[in-house]
Every structure is written in structure tokens, then in C-alpha cells.
């Protein structure tokens, strides 16, 4: 992978042939995916979803000591408004002196659309510097400046000479892709190009004696970059740090909730540890190519099996398998005993999960191990990383061939239809779709949360305890189910849930 020299990364439709519309079973999907003909499908009726700008902000708006400049008409980045004033508490878990979200919108008007928005971009960046003196200014580019052809990079290169904050352009125009996850590539692209590495122009390089250098290298040889995700809680991070420290490793956490300075020496690490290929493949591949740093990225440590796999992958890189096996044995023995009472209680319950491909497949395995039968899954999109995980899932979870697999971000009309047909005991969902399922009366377990833990061994216990608690009294959602109505016609529920997925192009590709 070598896109870093380009101004803009490619979209995932092109780079990973990612699919965003599919309906079938887990078995069908595994087979169809291998034929490589899923990416061309589309919908003839669709509901709204997020965009690259949305998800870019979700990933990196938490950066401490930074100001975001959103170069767009006034509405773009609107989701930030709900976090203004309340988000600081999560930043403070990482740094007591943290300030809340700060952003400036360039408020492009009709005049700017005709004559160009470059002057306002300058104005916004200079204002960010003058008012806040941040360490970094993250500039997010929306649809409109892309279409009117503002020379974002040229202006920002020029502005960099005038401001002391590091400027990071993030090109994340919404219309370019329906795979929101392309946002992760856009953010990492900007971060790698602009924050990683010492800036020897502005400060002298660090000088070390040979002894100091040897010591420094010894530290690096035991240092891992733990790549977190915006949906991870601080408790999740602490659990993973606990496990990595138990293997005598040093941990640097990036990129959500990081400080811009955390990236400067990010290339001084022995290994990149990802918990999600969807989130990190762009970053780790480039770090391998540019700095020779290898990576671990197969799975997310959710559930016992995946946490074990994740630890074994890391240990095998450092050649400390024995140490890892001891850790795994001790942790799993203790955990298995702790979750026994929940297993008795949850045996035979059924579940449906929706969210990112990596997260839902691993969470499904966790629930399976607690005694659940998994009736179906809905993934935001699907690509080669999902394919690997799905095949492991089909192996690990018996009789999962026939479970439903639906692909699409948002598209809650398909979800509503599916739920009316397969009626699970528990719905596990990404934010944005839970309200819809709640109005159908289902008990809901949120797929992730900023205040709760999900990952590692502790996560297994916590998930079990919370699922058990939620199932104990689903009265709130039951009431909603009896007294509210989703905005779909009764006739919709009688149709095939995948009626509006048009896969004629992929059928043609398959035959051709």
C-alpha cells in the first residue's frame, strides 16, 4: 500500500471492493464474497446514513488540544452540536486539563460557492490559531469545496508558515463514497502525512549517547501502538493495557482521545496492534511500508476466543508464547467460573446483531458462548477482512450457515422487516438503529458505549452481567412496542426484506 504520497486516499469501493448492499445467509455471503462480485449492488429505495465527514469527526474530534475547522456550508459537522458542552468528561479521563470540543465552520454561502471558499478557509484557520493557540488544527473538507475546486492543500501549506499549530488536512467529502469507513483512511492519511515524525525544521533532532541510544532502542523493542477506536471506552482501554502490560509491553494509545504530540514518535514502536481491520488497515499497512513496523490486525478482543487469538498473535510476534499461554490460562479459568451463573440463565435465548462487520461477528461469538443462538447479523459493509472473520465464525459457531446476513449502513426499513420475521429475544445494535428496534418492543443491548466495557476478559463478564440485567425487565421497550408505530406501511412487512436491493450488476458479473 502506498497512497501516502497522494493528496487524497482512494475510496473503499475501489481499494477494497467493499460491498454495501446484500441480503442472504452467512453461508451465502461467505460463498458470494469469494466470487468477488458483491461490490456493485445498490438500493432502489434507501434511507439516509452517515458520511465520511461524520465518521471522521467521530474518530478524531476527541483529539485533545486541537481545533477542528470544518470547511463547508453551515450544516456539515452538525452532529458535533450534540456533544458540545458534554463531551469534555471523556477527554478528562485521559487528561485532567482537557478542554471540550472546539470547532469553526467556514459557513460557505452562495457567494462563496461562486467565487470560491479559499478566503474563508484562511480566515477560519487563522481564527483557530489566534483564539485558541492549539497544538493542531484539523481541517475537514466537505462536498461543496471539493466540487467548487478549492485548493485546500495549497492554502494550508501556505498557512502552515504562519501558524504554530500543526495543520492536518482531512479530505472527507461525503458524496465520494457510500462506505463511511473510508473516513478512517482519510483521517489516518492526514495524520500520517502531517503529525508523524520529528519536525527538524522547527526543533533540533534529539541527540543521544550510544548507551542512551541502546536503552532507547530497548524500550522501542517492547513498545506497541494500541490503536483504539472512537467507540471504545476508557475502561476498555484500561483492560487492554492491563493485558499487554501483563506481557511486559509498553503501550502507546492512538488515535482517538490522543494528543497531537502522541503521533510524533508513533513510528518508534515494535508493533502496531489493531483491534479492528475496518478501522486500521490503512494505517498499519502504511506504517509497515514506511517504517517497517509489523502489525497484528486479525480480530477484536471481544469474547474469550477472540481475546485469546488476539493475545496469541501479539505474543507470537515477541516470541513470548509461553508467557501468554500462562496469562490466558489463568484469566480464562477465573472468567469461566465467574460467568457460569449467567450461562445457565441465558441458555437457549436468541439474538440479532447489527453494526460494523468486525464487531458484530466477534460479539456474536461471545453471546454464542453465553448460550445464545444467533439468528442474524447486519453489517455496515463487507470486505475481505469480514470474509476472513466470517469464515472463522462459521467454524467456531456450529450451525451458523443458515443465520441471516444483511449488509447496509442505516437502512432500518430492512431491519424492521427482518425483525418482524425472526423475532429474537435480544437485539444488539450500533447507535442510530436501536431506537427503531426499541419501538418494535425488543430488549436492546448497545453494541458499544463510552461508559461501559466490552473488551478483553473483563468485558466478557460485564457483557454477560449487563445482558442479564437488560433481559430482566424489558418493560420500557415493551411499552413502546405496544404504543408506537414505525413509519412503514403494513404491506412492507409482508414483502421480502431485501426487495429493494438491486444486485443485477453482481449477478451479471457472476455469470459473465
Amino acid at each position: 500500500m502506498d497512497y501516502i504520497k497522494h493528496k487524497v486516499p482512494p475510496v473503499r469501493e475501489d481499494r477494497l471492493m467493499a460491498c454495501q448492499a446484500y441480503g442472504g445467509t452467512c453461508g451465502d455471503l461467505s460463498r458470494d464474497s469469494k466470487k468477488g462480485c458483491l461490490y456493485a449492488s445498490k438500493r432502489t429505495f434507501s434511507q439516509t446514513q452517515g458520511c465520511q465527514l461524520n465518521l471522521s469527526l467521530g474518530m478524531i474530534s476527541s483529539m485533545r488540544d486541537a481545533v477542528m475547522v470544518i470547511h463547508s456550508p453551515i450544516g456539515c459537522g452538525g452532529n458535533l452540536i450534540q456533544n458540545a458542552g458534554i463531551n469534555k468528561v471523556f477527554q478528562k479521563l485521559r487528561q485532567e486539563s482537557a478542554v471540550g470540543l472546539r470547532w469553526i465552520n467556514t459557513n460557505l454561502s452562495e457567494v462563496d460557492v461562486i467565487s470560491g471558499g479559499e478566503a474563508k478557509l484562511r480566515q477560519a484557520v487563522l481564527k483557530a490559531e489566534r483564539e485558541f493557540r492549539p497544538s493542531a488544527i484539523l481541517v475537514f473538507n466537505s462536498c461543496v469545496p471539493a466540487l467548487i475546486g478549492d485548493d485546500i492543500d495549497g492554502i494550508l501549506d501556505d498557512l502552515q508558515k504562519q501558524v504554530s499549530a500543526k495543520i492536518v488536512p482531512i479530505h472527507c467529502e461525503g458524496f465520494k463514497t457510500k462506505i463511511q469507513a473510508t473516513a478512517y483512511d482519510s483521517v489516518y492519511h492526514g495524520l500520517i502525512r502531517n503529525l508523524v515524525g520529528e519536525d527538524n525544521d522547527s526543533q533540533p533532532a534529539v541527540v543521544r549517547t550510544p548507551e542512551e541510544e541502546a536503552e532507547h532502542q530497548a524500550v522501542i523493542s517492547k513498545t506497541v501502538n494500541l490503536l483504539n477506536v472512537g467507540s471504545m471506552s476508557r475502561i476498555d482501554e484500561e483492560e487492554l493495557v492491563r493485558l499487554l502490560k501483563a506481557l511486559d509491553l509498553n503501550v502507546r494509545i492512538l488515535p482517538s482521545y490522543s494528543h497531537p504530540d502522541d503521533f510524533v514518535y508513533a513510528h518508534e514502536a515494535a508493533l502496531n496492534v489493531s483491534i479492528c481491520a475496518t478501522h486500521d488497515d490503512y494505517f498499519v499497512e502504511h506504517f509497515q511500508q514506511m517504517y517497517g513496523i509489523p502489525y497484528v490486525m486479525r480480530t477484536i478482543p471481544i469474547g474469550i476466543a477472540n481475546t485469546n487469538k488476539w493475545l496469541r498473535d501479539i505474543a507470537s510476534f515477541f516470541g513470548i508464547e509461553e508467557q501468554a499461554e500462562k496469562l490466558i490460562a489463568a484469566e480464562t479459568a477465573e472468567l469461566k467460573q465467574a460467568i457460569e451463573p449467567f450461562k445457565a440463565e441465558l441458555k437457549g435465548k436468541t439474538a440479532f446483531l447489527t453494526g460494523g462487520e468486525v464487531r458484530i461477528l466477534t460479539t456474536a461469538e461471545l453471546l454464542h458462548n453465553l448460550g445464545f443462538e444467533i439468528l442474524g447479523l447486519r453489517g455496515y459493509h463487507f470486505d475481505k477482512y469480514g470474509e476472513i472473520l466470517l469464515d472463522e465464525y462459521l467454524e467456531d459457531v456450529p450451525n451458523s450457515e443458515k443465520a441471516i446476513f444483511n449488509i447496509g449502513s442505516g437502512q432500518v426499513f430492512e431491519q424492521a422487516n427482518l425483525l418482524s420475521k425472526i423475532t429474537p429475544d435480544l437485539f444488539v445494535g450500533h447507535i442510530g438503529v436501536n431506537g427503531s428496534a426499541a419501538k418494535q418492543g425488543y430488549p436492546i443491548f448497545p453494541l458499544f458505549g463510552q461508559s461501559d466495557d466490552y473488551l478483553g476478559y473483563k468485558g466478557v463478564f460485564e457483557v454477560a452481567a449487563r445482558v442479564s440485567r437488560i433481559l430482566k425487565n424489558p418493560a420500557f421497550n415493551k411499552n413502546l412496542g405496544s404504543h408506537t408505530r414505525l413509519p412503514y406501511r403494513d404491506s412492507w412487512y409482508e414483502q421480502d426484506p431485501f426487495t429493494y436491493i438491486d444486485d443485477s450488476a453482481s449477478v451479471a458479473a457472476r455469470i459473465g
Partner: protein
Amino acid sequence: MSKVIERPRYVCALGGAIGTIQSLPRAIPILHSSSGCGGNLAGALSGASGYNGGNYCGGQALPSSNVSERDIVFGGEGRLQEQIENTLKVMDGDLYFVVTGCMVEMIGDNVHAVTKRFKGGDLPVLAAETVSFKGNSYYGYELVLETLFRDFVEKTTEKDAKTVNLWGVVPMQDVFWKGNLGVLKNLLKKLGIETNTFFGQGETLDNLKNAAKASLNIVVSDAYGIEAAKVFEEVHGVPYLTVQLPVGDHGTSRFLRTVGKTLGVDDIKIEKLIQEERKAYYPYLERLADVYNDLDFQRYATVVGDPNYTQALTRFLADDLGWLPELVVITDILAEEQKERVLATFGEYESGLRPEIVFDEDASSVGGYINRHWPQNQGQKYYKGFAPGVILGSVMERDTAEQFKVPLLSVTYPISNRVVLNRAYAGYTGGLTLAEDVLSLVVAHR
């Protein structure tokens, strides 16, 4: 050139339009826009509005043509037609309303030509070009109302002297919109007037469809909904009156006198109602007699937000509560003539108070104005600052309130540190609710 804005308290015309349509009973917005527009606006419409939720059809349920690069190159009209056809099949509504984002405007899609093909069908399909770079949420609200008044409200020569329409309270942007509309409707009912608010509890689209029978349109705002009122007058011949959002006795009594007089209600009847309402209002305020005075609960106040609320809150604090709301920061983008109209609403206080009014869209400017109004301590031994003080504004004033160590009540948009269901601040009862909320903050600090 329009300004860049630090932490704007509104979104684009598309966002305002979606918020408006999804607050109408059984109306379905159809977005003709990039796939991300609806998702990008969802948090502003729901989370930032006291956790309003999406109503019947909002959030990720919003139908959207989701145009992407291919449509941008080849044009999106075909995709829109397909989307409308299938929306009518899947989505269960009584009114469908196409709204547009930036991209489809820039490529020149003609949405009106497409929606025209659905004219005369079983279900009404309207359209408005809610292009984001032409204005903010309030402009979107205005455009939707104009379209509804032109294309949905049925023409009639029949007029009913006892019926009025009322708007200007913007759904979502006024976080307490639903409760407020209910209060105003009930007050007018006591004057013998029936009111269509279109968005209020218990109303249906028929209230809107038959709105041309009204004898007066009441726009409860000096900034929003006035253009729509002009359209209503032009198309249906119904005149309009602008009044201020009333909170508490002084504001509400003014409101009743102005509206009542315009409608030709007998003065005696109006004054009788005001006396009755006061009889219910002051015995509650009376309960505060001890605590207010024993503990010296008079406060300086800074009021931050949109023109509707800032004038209402300031009058309530000054004249009903006897506080000193000396500084008001109005955060909307307003034209010069709007500013003048809005400025005129901050006057004629019974208490004789003359607040300082500033217009500034940037969220972080508020602290600076407080420092300027109550000059900063320059190391003096004897020094008088913003104390004892309270800020009435939005959740965005949290840091400023922390900085000055004063309590904050979020009343203006955005509000994400409170959950709002049917709470209302309008009218006499709303004044009591506001007194409860603001004084609870003060006692909570004991």
C-alpha cells in the same frame, strides 16, 4: 462575505427543513442529497434538542436518494424519481416532502420537474430547494412553511373570525416547542379563539390543510416565519401579526393584549383573563417570598441564545423575578433590518432595566462580553464582577459558566445536558416552571 462561525448553534437549511417536516404529524421527508446528509444532521436534530428523538420519521429512517459520485456526474433526477416511487410504497405517511442538499443543487437537478410527475396521485408530494449554502436552519423552516402554504393549504373564501394560525416557534431549535405551542393554544382558547399550530400535540395535517379559513396569522417571533407569513397573505389573503414569545406574567399579559386587540376581543374580556391567570400565578410565586429574601436570591444574569428566547427570558428575569439580566448575547445570523426589529423587543421594562445587547455568533465570545460588562479584576482590593451571577443560555455556555463559577440553566438550543419531553416555558405556567428551574439551580448550590 458571511462570517466563519465558531461553534454554530444551528445547521443548514436542509437540517431546518428536515426538523420542521418531521415535526408535522405523519409527514415523511425525502432527502435528495448525498448519502451522509441525514446522518450528519441527526445528532443536531435529536441529541442537541433535549434528546428530542426523531419523532415519527426521523434519524436513520429518513428516506434519501443517497446520491454519490456517479449520480453527481450523470445527474440524479432518475434516482430521485425511483426513490419517490418506492418511498410511497414503503413509507406510511399522509404527506411526502422532498428536500435537497448542496450537491444536487450544484449539478442542477430539477426536483420540481420530478415531483410534478407525482401530482394528482393518491398522496401529496411537495418539494422545496433547501440548499444549505443559502441559509441556516431557520431559513429551512421558512422555506418549508412557504411551500406548505402555497402548495398544501387549500384555498377557500370561507373565513372564520374565531380561528387563527400560529407559528414562529421553530421545532427543535426551540427545544420546548411542543409544550410552548400547547400553552399558547390553551391561552387563546380562553379568549374564545381556536388556534392551528400545525406542530402541536393532537393536531393533524387537517389543521394545516384548512388553515386558510383563519382570520389572522400570529407569528410568535421577530425573526422567523415572517417571510412565510407574507406568502400566506399573498396566496390566501390572511393578514399577520408578529408578537414576542411570552414567558411569565409581564410577557404573557402583553401577548394577550396585543393578540386580543388585533382580533377585536373585548378589552374587558382580555383584562379579566389576565386577572384570572395572575390569580393562579402569584400564589405560586408567593411561596418564594421567604427563600428569595432570606437568602438574597437576586442575581445578575447573562442571557445567551436566539432572538425569540433571549427577549422572553430577559423580560421574565427583569420584570417577573426582579433580577438584573444586564447582558444579552444574540447568537443568530440576522440581517440588519431583523436586528433592528429584534432590538426593539428589549424595551419598555416595568423594572426600568436597560440590558446591553450584543450580536455575536461565536460561542466562545460570551466570556469576553461578560468580562467587558462586569470589568475584570485587575488586582484591585475592592472589586465588583459578575457575582452573584447566573447564565441562561445553552449547553455551549458550560465552560463559560465554569470559568465564572456561576450556575447555568440551558434553555436555548443546543441542550444536551437535559432531557426535554413536554416541559414548556411559555405563558404564565411556563414562567412558574422557569422560576422552579432557575431557582433550583441556586438552591442546589447551597
